[in-house]
């Protein structure tokens, strides 16, 4: 049962990165690809109907983690205390920027929120990448399952570790590039005119960065966490995910070159999803890997809530998620046409 919930939590988190990831990416590119007010309202309109629902996946994943692995949630959120609040404050600022920006027809008001939207989107992509880096590298869990981390120590990825070191920052920057591709391809799909052209160009440049950085980050992971990739010897699923990720980069590249925006966005989604899937497959069974004492790791075996409660929860969680997917499909159908400036955020 615990392993099934590992898959559910990983799946919900991946859904969050895939969905909210494209609006983080759109946010990062906001001021670059959209120069006039109409263009910027087009970007906001492209993500406006979706961003809030996308962000609920974070709460859905958090909720699943809370009930299925309360030990992990309590250790992780209190251990990363300050970093979590940085994330939360960025989420607040970003949500307000999207919702408040177009309410007032004042240049300074809008410019302020445009920049806030861009900065918080960029920081969030960076923070979530850093978080992933921390989980892969490991945290200093004690035998009773608690830890606390400084924001940074020596920037070395060896104990005593901090939240920020060269490895986690590298993963963070990689996440920024990957989500820039994701957001760029999404905007290309949902907008037209100059915004679409600039989004394609931005996505192509970011994709180049991703293709260069991917092997480097993989090499760094092997250095920082020796044995992480041993899973490939025994877990065929990891190979499958990597194949999907590679195919995704090829598809994204081809889609951007041939101006087939749907293909490019799907490729980007496969890349992000495949990479996260492969990471989850390699990390299993640990949810929080412990350094330097590996035996203190919190795993599906020692950190799960009792199986009875999880079994019954499975029977409402999964139908509930299917219902939510139904809403998403309905929403996507209603907004299948290109986004236009007056669609969201102002009664223009």
């Amino acid at each position: 049962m615990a392993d099934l919930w590992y898959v559910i939590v990983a799946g919900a988190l991946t859904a969050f990165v895939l969905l909210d990831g494209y609006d983080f990416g759109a946010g990062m590119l906001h001021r670059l690809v959209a120069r006039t007010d109409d263009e910027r309202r087009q970007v906001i309109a492209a993500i406006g109907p979706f961003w809030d629902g996308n962000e609920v996946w974070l709460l859905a994943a958090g909720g699943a983690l809370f009930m299925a692995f309360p030990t992990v949630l309590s250790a992780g959120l209190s251990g990363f205390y300050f970093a979590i609040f940085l994330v939360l404050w960025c989420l607040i600022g970003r949500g307000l920027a999207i919702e408040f920006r177009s309410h007032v027809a004042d240049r300074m008001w809008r410019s302020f929120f445009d920049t806030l939207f861009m900065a918080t989107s960029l920081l969030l992509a960076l923070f979530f990448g850093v978080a992933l880096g921390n989980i892969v590298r490991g945290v200093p869990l004690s035998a009773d399952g608690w830890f606390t981390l400084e924001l940074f120590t020596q920037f070395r990825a060896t104990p005593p570790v901090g939240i920020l070191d060269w490895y986690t920052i590298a993963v963070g920057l990689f996440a920024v590039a990957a989500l820039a591709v994701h957001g760029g391809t999404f905007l290309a799909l949902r907008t037209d005119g100059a915004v679409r052209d600039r989004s394609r160009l931005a996505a192509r440049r970011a994709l180049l960065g991703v293709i260069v950085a991917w092997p480097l980050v993989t090499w760094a992971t092997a250095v920082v966490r020796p044995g992480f990739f041993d899973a490939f010897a025994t877990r065929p699923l990891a190979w499958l995910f990597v194949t999907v990720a590679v195919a995704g980069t090829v598809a994204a590249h081809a889609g951007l070159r041939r101006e087939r925006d749907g293909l490019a966005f799907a490729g980007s989604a496969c890349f992000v999803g495949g990479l996260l899937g492969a990471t989850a497959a390699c990390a299993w069974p640990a949810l929080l890997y412990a350094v330097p004492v590996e035996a203190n790791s919190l795993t599906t075996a020692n950190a799960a809530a009792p199986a009875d409660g999880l079994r019954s929860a499975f029977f409402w969680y999964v139908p509930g998620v299917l219902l939510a997917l139904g809403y998403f499909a309905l929403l996507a159908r209603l907004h299948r046409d290109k986004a236009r400036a007056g669609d969201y955020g102002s009664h223009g």
Partner: protein
Amino acid sequence: MLADALIWHRLQFAFTITFHYLFPVLTMGLALFIVVMKALALRTGDSRWDDAARFWIRIFGINFAVGVVTGIPMEFQFGTNWARLSRYAGPVIGQTLALEGIFAFFLESSFLALLVWGEKRLSRLAHFAVAVALFVGSWLSAYFVIATSAFMHHPVGYAVGPDGNLQIVDLGAVLLNPWALLQFAHNQAASVATASFVIAAVGAWYLLRNEHTDFARRCLTLGVGFGFVASLAVAFPTGDMQAKAVAKHKPAALAAMEGRFESGPRAGITLIGQPNVAERRLDNPITVPGMLSFLAFGTFQGNVAGLNEFPESDWPDNIELLYYAFHIMAGLGTLMIGLMGLAALALLTRRLFTSRALLWALALAFPFPYIAVTTGWMTAELGRQPWVVYGLLRTADASSQMVHGGTALFTLIGFMGMDFLIGLAFLWLVSRELSAGPGTHPHGTTPPEAAHG
């Protein structure tokens, strides 16, 4: 004191949830009014109800957006600030909170944009259905939060596992916790009352200024009609039932709420007085004899326990604050019934729209329900102390022991600063909507000819 993390953890949660709840308390009630206005428009074919709904949807949209962003930190703070509570009770309260995410948040977030911005994309019936979806989603969300809170007030459907942590035995029992049903009824009545006061206040304001008079009369009629029923329902039966449940299950909390230090039958209800905890007595009380016994147990002879019957370690840890919070709530609740009663009478006798005194009172009274709701939740949560999960886990044993007091203080100050700015922006945006009034589109740079749809 600065290094003592517990107080900062408590204040941070109290501050963030209090600020957050100022917004959903309005949107839940407003969602009901929007459904009613759109139903009236569909039924009567009178497009002025559509215009009224459109105005309130704009107010709803601003409130909802602030409610969403201030709500995001709430679930996370269980882990960041209350890690030992999360580890202990996560298998139970994690389920109710996850249920909220899956069944309420997805519904609300998916349809919010369609309600606020999608009217021209949808048929009239479809837009009405979206309003209903928002209403259902927001009330469902409240139910799951209240079921979580109710578990912490009155734990049911659980067992203590071999590792000493809680495990869920019966999800049905947790969801149908009688405490949750009572709290939900009381809370939702208060939410409808809040929206009623706000709608009536806007109507009264416009009528006093002789602006948008048709819209103002519609608002006043709905606001006062619903407001009288809801204000009454907050006290009776829901508040009364809640008080009886507290008397039965949390006698120490009731004693502290009433500043009652000694047990005895024929207990009087205190209207005014100051609890003097050091001297163990209530100073300068004005009481109605026998009333507390009657309200709690249905007989004037009922023995109402005083704090003397409980060890001091089980007393709520801030009796003065609990006492005043409860009395402010009850006092304002009474005032609200009185004001809405007068207004309803005037409405029925067709004098409301011309009575300037009543209109002024209604225009100024809208903070009452906000204060009453806030002090009401303070009463509930302070009354649960010193427990975080009643009878099972003490608040002092529930916080994150890995987090230093200074760190928690820092994030608390961060929230205060941020929420202050959010509050300013919110008030400014709402005041713009109010000065623009219904039937106009106050914002957006798009000139009319460039607008589409």
